[in-house]
Structures are given as structure tokens and as C-alpha cells.
């Protein structure tokens, strides 16, 4: 596992990803081999079909939206950098990172970036606002119990 992945991922790239996302060396190689195992077409990018092939993602009510979050505006393929950038949102916040880089750009896994990510799952038309329809759509998908209390909406 390890040897195959590290020969295809160049060191400079690895360093850049490390700086951008904050993942450790070993985590990046681990995720790279996951990326290549998902990439059935072996062209270095993932398409929506590659994601949909994961069985547990298919039964997830928000599966499509999560997949969409990986692909930038209007594109159908995501490369490894983009993949890592999205995954970086989910990295836990470590205490020693808070005081690290006050002047630089906000780290991808900061609190507000995480909230932004969740917001984008609701906001389908990407107008930076959640309309009532958009909220109802998510409600339907996440319909966890039969009787929904929707009084607070009216």
C-alpha cells in the first residue's frame, strides 16, 4: 500500500498539500492511496460516478450533496488537491494551532470554514442564502421520523 502511493505523489506536491490542509505526511499518503483506489479510470481525477460507487454513500440521504461539495463550480472532475481541500474541512481543530498563524489565511478546518461547508450543503443555488424551499428539500431528505413538526416554519 504505502510504496505504490508514494512513488506517484511527488514530494513537492505533498509538501504543498501539507501546508494547505494541515494533514500529516502519513495521512496524506494514506488518503492518496484511497484516492487511487476510488479512481477506477486511473486518470488521476475522480468523477461523480467514482463517488457513487461507494455503497454506504448511496444510502446516505445527503449523498448527492456531499458529492457535489467536492466538485468546484461547473466541473465534473476533481483532482487530488481538490479532494484533499474538501476533506481538510473535517480535520479536528487542535489547540496548538490556534495561536500558530494569526496573520495568514484561515486554516481550512477552522470553525467558520466548517460551518460554511455545512451551509453550502443547504444552499443549492449558491446564492449565499437558504430559502424556505431549500430547507424543505433537506427536510424531506432527512426525514428521520414520520411526523415532522413543521410548525415553526409558518
Amino acid at each position, binding site marked *: *500500500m*504505502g*510504496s505504490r502511493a*508514494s512513488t506517484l505523489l511527488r514530494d513537492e506536491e505533498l509538501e504543498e498539500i501539507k501546508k494547505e490542509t494541515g494533514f*500529516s505526511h*502519513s*495521512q496524506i*499518503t*494514506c*488518503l492518496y*492511496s*484511497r484516492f487511487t*483506489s*476510488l479512481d477506477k479510470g486511473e486518470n488521476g481525477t475522480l468523477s461523480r460516478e467514482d*463517488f457513487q*460507487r*461507494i*455503497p*454506504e*454513500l448511496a*444510502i*446516505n*440521504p*445527503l*449523498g448527492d450533496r*456531499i458529492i457535489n461539495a467536492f466538485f468546484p463550480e461547473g466541473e465534473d472532475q476533481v483532482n487530488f488537491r481538490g479532494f484533499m481541500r474538501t*476533506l481538510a474541512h*473535517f480535520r479536528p481543530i487542535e489547540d496548538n494551532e490556534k495561536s500558530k498563524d494569526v496573520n495568514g489565511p484561515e486554516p481550512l478546518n477552522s470553525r467558520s470554514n466548517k460551518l460554511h*461547508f*455545512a451551509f453550502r*450543503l*443547504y444552499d443549492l443555488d449558491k446564492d449565499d442564502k437558504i430559502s424556505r424551499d431549500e430547507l424543505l428539500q*433537506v*427536510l424531506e431528505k*432527512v426525514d*428521520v*421520523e*414520520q*411526523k*415532522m*413538526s*413543521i410548525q*415553526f416554519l409558518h
Partner: protein
Amino acid sequence: MFLLLPFDSLIVNLLGISLTVLFTLLLVFIIVPAIFGVSFGIRKLYMKTLLKIFAWATLRMERGAKEKNHQLYKPYTNGIIAKDPTSLEEEIKEIRRSGSSKALDNTPEFELSDIFYFCRKGMETIMDDEVTKRFSAEELESWNLLSRTNYNFQYISLRLTVLWGLGVLIRYCFLLPLRIALEFLSKHVHLMCYRICVRALTAIITYHDRKNRPRNGGICVANHTSPIDVIILASDGYYAMVGQVHGGLMGVIQRAMVKACPHVWFERSEVKDRHLVAKRLTEHVQDKSKLPILIFPEGTCINNTSVMMFKKGSFEIGATVYPVAIKYDPQFGDAFWNSSKYGMVTYLLRMMTSWAIVCSVWYLPPMTREKDEDAVQFANRVKSAIARQGGLVDLLWDGVDH
């Protein structure tokens, strides 16, 4: 200079003693049990000790990692995330079940943050799911002290490094030479066995032109009179054999031989499938480090007065062919095996009770197929060479019915 002399002899003595001890150990603990098929259980003990050491090493690493607050492999995951052991499907069912039961009492209200749960679950499956990961190599949960598998464990403590260093020492300086010695030895033992067989049959073999002996990556072709041909040729060199899988005594011998060297055995049904046979032979031949293949292209035992038409299969492959001619002197014992008349055991008995087996083996210079020759012509060329050398009649008939 003179001062060195007493030390010199001391060192030589020590070396001699240690070598003797090593060889005795080797003999007693490895070779003798191997011959009798008995195991001392040393390997099992070795494995148990290794496992204990690996477990200790992993514990040390986890402790060390905790002190420095590093991320490590978590106990119930095989990946880089800490996952709950239940799957998404089960959790959804669980939520639906619990939701409908308390529908009237305290209706759990929808919150905007409810999607966090599904989002997280989805991300987890993208990173690592049970199904897709079955197709990649297994990740070890504990480190087995080989730096080849160490891609997530960094320097933790001095004691561990020392252990790792010791492991390296043992592996390279002890196990490696031991394994090489055993492999080397096995070749010689192999040869020895054949020579013993030859002695047992009181065979007097004269080898001619030994400089033309077959080399690696070639095919050795000989005329076939009896299974003893095999013994005769094999006692003078290492070959990989090609032949049909026989039942009975021959089968037992064949299975034993396979353990020692890489041979290519075929099932009767496969023999009819020429392409498969040719493919396997080509693969074997192309590997330059493999032993030369020994083939008897007549397909059956001939009574040693003539050479029948060679089957062209072995000549199609295109490797270098080393022809060998074997001629028995019939005065002392007729070595011909008429497989339709006698079984193997009867044949052996006859062999054992004859006066002696005298034969000559000629190693002919290697031949390769020329560009304008097809396999049949090449086969005939080789056949005539063998026939001429052995003083046998060169026949055009086929020994086997199609």
C-alpha cells in the same frame, strides 16, 4: 609478523570450531528432521516469540504517542479516522425505529444541525469504507519491526530503536546467510540423491562432451528409453522436468521432486492442450535464472534402437535446444520400459535384478531454430543429430497414436 602467528592459529581454530558447530546444528536441527518429516516445533516457538515482541513494541509506541499527543492508529479502526463500529444503515434504522415510537410524546424537532450527522457519516465512507478497501493491501495494526511496513510510526523511544536495530542485525546477519546456505545445500542434496540412485542400479555411465552441457534458460532434448534416463541426466546437472502426472509410485516420486525444484507437471487432460503447455514452457524458459527444461520429445519410451519422430511442440518455443543422446548397452541389461506391458514396480524389479546398466550420454552442441526453418524441420534436424551420435536408426514415424 611473528607475534601474529599464535593469534593466527587461535583465530583459525575458533573459526573452525564455530563452523563445525554451525554445521552440526544445521544437520541435526534442520536436515535430519526434514528427511524424516519430523518437526521440532522450533519454528512455532520462533513465531510465538516474534508475536510477543511485536505486541510489546506496539504498546511502547502507543504509550509514546500518547505522551507526545500524536495521532496514531485507533484501536477499532483500520484507517486514519476514528469511526464508530456501526454502519450508516443500522443507525438510520435505529433512528427511524426510535422516532416513530415516541412520535406523540416529545416530537423531536428538526434542527438545522441535523445534517451534520449525515455529512460526517458520508465523509467517513468516502475516506474509508468496508467494501472498497478489501481490494488494497492490508494495513498492519501493529508494527512488525520491519522498516518496509513502517509508514505511520515515527521515532518514539530509544529502547524501540535498539530493538529495531537488533532485529535488523539478526535478519541480515543470521537469517539471510542461513537461508542462502540451506538453498545452496538443497541443490547439492538433490544431486546427491540422484547419484545414490545411480549407484543403486549399478549404472556405469560415460559422459561425453560435457562442455556442451545444457545451460539455464534452454531446453534439453533427449531420446527416451526409460524413466532411468531422467535419473541419469539429473545426476549430472540440474534440470526442471516436464512430464505427465502419473499415478502410483511414479506419482509419489514426482510429488517429492516438485518440492525440491521447480518442475512443470501436467495433467493428462492438459497434455492434449498444446497451447497451454507451450505457454507454460515459454514462461519458464524466458526466465533466465530457471533451470533448463528436460523434455523427451518422442512422447514415449522407445526401445533404443531408433529415434522416432519428435513432437514439434517443444521446438516451437524458440529457445536454445541442447540435444542429448543416450545409448544403452543392451548386453548388460535391457533398460527399455514397455509401458503397455509392465508396470513401474515390475520394471524397477527387472532393473534391480539385471547385471548392470551401462550407457553413454553424449552432450551435443546447442542448436537454435533458423529463420527459414519451421518447427517440424528443426525437430527433424535435432533428431538426426541425436540419432547419428547414438548410432540409432532415424525413423520418420510417430510413436504415439493421435
